[in-house]
């Protein structure tokens, strides 16, 4: 005898055949449905000094929602602070403020996770802020305690850093942050105690030379600065004066306050960000828990308050960051350990909440986004 049945009817056979055909059609359809693509994303990296790590996030372009990438946080040196992503989006650099080093990480092309590339590179004491030129060939670091600027050339294939001969260069005592023009020709540094911006011209080899007339006056408590994407203006948040200074950049790098500067902000402005096209300026006010919004005249740099400004920003927003597509603004709060996103409407610039807020496991010290 055989397990095969020998008495089933032709009706039964027909049913079996129909069922089999239906199944063979169903499976490819099921697989097709499962393999549908997700919408576009980009990556964000956040440093957490109390856990000595960097958390990687996948950011949805359509919603600005953040999803933590597996393996986060990735270990850094002690007390990571500033974070930046190379323009090639292949590497992340983190300044370790207690170790006085920079950690270089390779970004996984598959999921955005990080693997550190050793050795770590020495900086001056307390690397407080970092910036890279738009081509990704030079990295600049301000060392707050040693009051210097370290400059590194970046290997285009490996991302490895090599100190530029003649650096670190002494700068204003206790510098807190810096910014470089899109051309990479000028570098600006602020010190919260001196109410001024220090300008440097950058040679092709990375050596720095003070811009004629530097330092340039800002307002009391100059603390944060950024440069507009067209390289025409420097924006400085003045924490003591509760203002933002707007300085136009001359061909030789010298800075001049635009008409009307400084402009009033909320209380204790500590973060400043400009929209992708340079039309809108946003200031994080730590004291008044809101964000001041300005539209910027592209020719004169004059700032006009946007209708609806300021917008509430939770508890003590500390710094701001625009996403690479210019669609969203991220506000980071250290006290509430949150990253909150806002939509930047391209026609008005008036921020609107997305409803997306991500709580981090610990206090955030730096954040960077990639393409």
């Amino acid at each position, binding site marked *: *005898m*055989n*397990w*095969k*049945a*020998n*008495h*089933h009817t032709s009706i*039964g*056979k027909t*049913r*079996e055949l129909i*069922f*089999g055909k239906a*199944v*063979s059609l169903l*499976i490819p359809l*099921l*697989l097709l449905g*499962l*393999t549908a*693509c*997700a919408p576009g*994303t980009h990556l964000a990296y956040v440093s957490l000094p109390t856990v000595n790590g960097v958390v*990687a*996030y*996948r950011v949805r372009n359509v919603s600005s929602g953040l*999803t*933590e*990438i*597996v*393996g*986060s946080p*990735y*270990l850094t040196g002690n007390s990571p602070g500033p974070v930046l992503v190379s323009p090639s989006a292949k590497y992340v650099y983190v300044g370790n403020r207690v170790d006085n080093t920079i950690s270089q990480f390779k970004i*996984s092309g*598959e*999921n*955005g*996770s*990080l*693997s*550190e590339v*050793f050795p770590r590179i020495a900086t001056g004491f307390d690397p407080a802020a970092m910036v890279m030129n738009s081509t990704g060939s030079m990295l600049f670091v301000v060392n707050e305690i040693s009051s210097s600027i370290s400059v590194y050339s970046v290997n285009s294939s490996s991302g490895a850093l090599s100190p530029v001969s003649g650096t670190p260069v002494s700068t204003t005592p206790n510098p807190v942050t810096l910014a470089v023009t899109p051309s990479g020709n000028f570098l600006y540094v602020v010190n919260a105690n001196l109410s001024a911006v220090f300008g440097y011209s950058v040679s092709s080899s990375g050596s720095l030379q003070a811009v004629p007339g530097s330092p340039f006056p800002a307002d009391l408590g100059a603390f944060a600065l950024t440069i507009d994407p067209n390289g025409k203006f420097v924006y400085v948040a003045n924490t003591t004066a509760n203002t933002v200074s707007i300085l136009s950049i001359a061909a030789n790098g010298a800075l001049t306050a635009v008409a009307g500067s400084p402009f009033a902000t909320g209380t204790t402005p500590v973060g400043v960000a400009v929209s992708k096209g340079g039309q809108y300026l946003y200031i994080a006010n730590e004291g008044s828990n809101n964000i001041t919004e300005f539209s910027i005249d592209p020719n004169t740099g004059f700032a006009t308050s946007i209708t609806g400004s300021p917008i509430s920003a939770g508890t003590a927003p500390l710094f701001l960051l625009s996403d690479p597509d210019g669609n969203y603004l991220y506000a980071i709060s250290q006290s509430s350990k949150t990253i909150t996103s806002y939509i930047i409407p391209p026609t008005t610039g008036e921020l609107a909440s997305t409803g997306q807020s991500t709580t981090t496991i610990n206090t955030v010290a730096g954040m960077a986004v990639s393409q």
Partner: protein
Amino acid sequence: MISRFVSTTRRVVALLFFTLLISVPRLHAQQASRFDAFGGFSYLRFNALTIGYPNDTNMYGWNVDGTGYIKWGVGATVDASGNYGSQLSSYHFMVGPQYRWRRPTSNIFIHGLFGKAQNNASIPQPTRSGFESVGRSFGGGFGYDREWKDRISIRVFQVDIFHSTTFGKGQNDARVSAGLVYHFGHIGHRRKL
């Protein structure tokens, strides 16, 4: 030492399997199998979005299960699978109740599954080669076996959906398997349609 142990174990398992194969009597037309053993290929649509990947991921691997029946259609199954992608791998170790409907030349079955999932991400770090997480998993599925030869059926498909909690995130994965089923033992004296 370890390789000798593995080699010996393999021989013992092969011997047991062969003994089982030749010792069981053939099933009669009016009978249903007592035990089914399945082995085959599996495809897993891994819900990698939840752990920060840009898209869900396709993974391929193996799937085995063993099912014992206490009645014509009622039984329990033990299921294991391993699926592999370029950076991720995923294992499921599950048990659960299964019910089958016997047809003249085929079986249709449904089951519920409960157990553990282990997911691994190969992301090199200074002190480790990657990350792994083990968490609870549950789900269910159904399948279709079509007889091929005496005691052997082709599992045309088996579809399972799992909800697993690993890396601190809940995720929903879909698995499709196909392969061969070997039937052992017998239950009852007449067939049920």
